[in-house]
């Protein structure tokens, strides 16, 4: 029987200030692969844990903008193609490619594309759906969606050492330190 692969060590804290202090300490200690878990977004924590910052700041908005522009072009082209090429109808001699009348649907389709990209992109970058998470095995982890604050240093961090990291986390005065296995 092989021992389960460790996922990391998680420390549970009483409030957001402690979590923030702990995260800053972990960063100063040289850890890079760690993550804070909280019941609401803590903006100061975003700077300490830079994962996903670039995605959120540039990649996602860029994709959404690009999708919107592409949607606008496609939407206009669809209308032009149908009204002027495939199914031309002469209504009171109005021009077939009457762009002014196409503005509304062009905008609607541009927004539709942007919308789907914003939603789908967020789920994609969050790697959702991911129903199972090793941390869910921590008996008190349900508090994270209510009033619990966790800091998890992952085992994939080059700096990670089961005993040393545990001692480091214990020095931050958490409520408890949990050993979490993968799987």
């Amino acid at each position, binding site marked *: 029987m092989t021992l389960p692969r460790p996922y990391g060590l998680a420390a549970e804290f009483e409030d957001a200030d402690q979590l923030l202090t702990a995260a800053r300490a972990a960063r100063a200690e040289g850890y890079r692969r760690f993550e804070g878990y909280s019941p609401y977004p803590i903006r100061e924590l975003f700077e300490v844990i830079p994962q996903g910052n670039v995605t959120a700041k540039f990649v996602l*908005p860029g994709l959404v903008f690009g999708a919107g522009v592409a949607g606008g072009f496609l939407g206009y082209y669809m209308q032009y193609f*149908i009204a002027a090429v495939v199914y031309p109808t002469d209504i009171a001699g109005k021009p077939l490619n009457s762009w002014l009348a196409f503005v509304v649907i062009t905008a609607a389709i541009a927004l539709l594309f942007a919308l789907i990209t*914003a939603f789908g992109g967020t789920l994609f970058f969050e790697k959702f759906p991911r*129903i199972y998470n090793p941390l869910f095995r921590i008996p008190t982890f349900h508090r994270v969606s209510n009033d619990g604050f966790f800091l998890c240093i992952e085992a994939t961090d080059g700096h990670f050492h089961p005993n040393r990291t545990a001692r480091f986390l214990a020095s931050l005065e958490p409520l408890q330190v949990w050993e979490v296995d993968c799987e």
Partner: protein
Amino acid sequence: MRVAERQQQTARPILPVERTDLPLVAPGVTFRSLTGRVVANVLQPDVPLFWFWCYLAAIAAACVFSTALAIVLDVGIGVMGNNIPVAWVFPIANYVWWIEIAVGGSLLSSILRLTNQGWRSSINRIAESVTLAGIVCAGLFPIIHLGRSWVAYWTLPYPNTMIIQPNFRSPLVWDVFGIGTYALASVLFWYMDLLPDLATMRDHATSRISYFLYGLLSLGWSGASHHWRLHERAGLLLAGILTPLVFTVHTVVSFDFCISLVPGWHSTIFPPYFVTGAILAGISMVALMTTWVRSSFRLTSIITERHLNNLSKLILTTSVIMAYVYVFEPFINWYSGNYFDIYSTYVRSAGNFAWTYWAFILLGLGVPQLLWWKKNRITPRRLFVIALLIVIGMWLERYMLMVTSLSRDYLPSYWANFAATGADNALLYGSIGLFLCIFLLLIRALPMIPMYEIRMLLPLSKPGGGSVK
């Protein structure tokens, strides 16, 4: 005296002003009491008695709706009162009205979010539930009005063996795309906003089935910092996308009218006038539902008087803009010198349906003025009645808009009258039941307060909600 010194003497800093605002969340609310309060409303095994009776009544009305719908589909739209030339009365008035009601919720979740209005949080979920239920009702009426509802998909451009395509120069086709995008935007926004709260529900689930369902719907939300980062950004992006939709959706609806040549409709004031009306009706409906839910579920510590006060101020502002439109429109009609436009003003205020015009003036423009008094703004019962009257007034307004213009067209030989039939009334009142059904289910099965946003408003979360008061 040197300039700098003089400035120091004449310009004294007066900020921060001592603000006497009512609190956003009642003092004493903690993370735990907040979660307990909201979760209990969803998970309590006994159905609250008032909810049960309301739901029963709503279901009964929804049954009336489906019966009427079945008759209309089976017999044909001749059972409704509208006919040429008055072709657009109840179904389209209902459609415009329901879209208006939906827009109110979107305004809260888009523009007020982008402008960082902290007070929006507590009532956001209720407003979004109003939006979703409103869109469902709104979407049905144009389809019913098509006559052959089962081929409603013909309005979409798709390759077909008939080799016919929609006419993109028609505002009615614009509507299909406008409303479709808006409906999808509302659903996605609502779900994105719901994710963290679904995780809370998962973690508090009492039965295996609810644990499984909430677990599945929350997609595995763990509250990780970089998920929050993305979630916040996605919320802003979606709010940014929803913002133009709040305006365009009702602008496109108004195009259905103003691009025609019917006297009284053919006017450039229609888009802003419709959007204002939408915000007035929508926020009134949100206020109506908020006061009701607040007292029924005893949420007075989370939805405070400040929320009612702010909602009332929004209603008051839009009602004043609406009053401006009602002064300006007759003026423009008179100033245009166009005989038919002048006559349409006359028909509205003194014709067969003048009572709807004056009823709207009273309910939609007069009643909101009561909100100048603070007591009326923050007393839930009073606000409830005022909001209800405004919502009714806004329906009458849309009804008046259609029936007066269509029944008195250019040629007297083309004039006709309109009388609503049983099917018309059944569909209107039934759709209110349908709306309440969906709304009641949404607030019962899902947390009706966005918990994670309220947590940020609590003083306990100092490092988090620095920017929100």
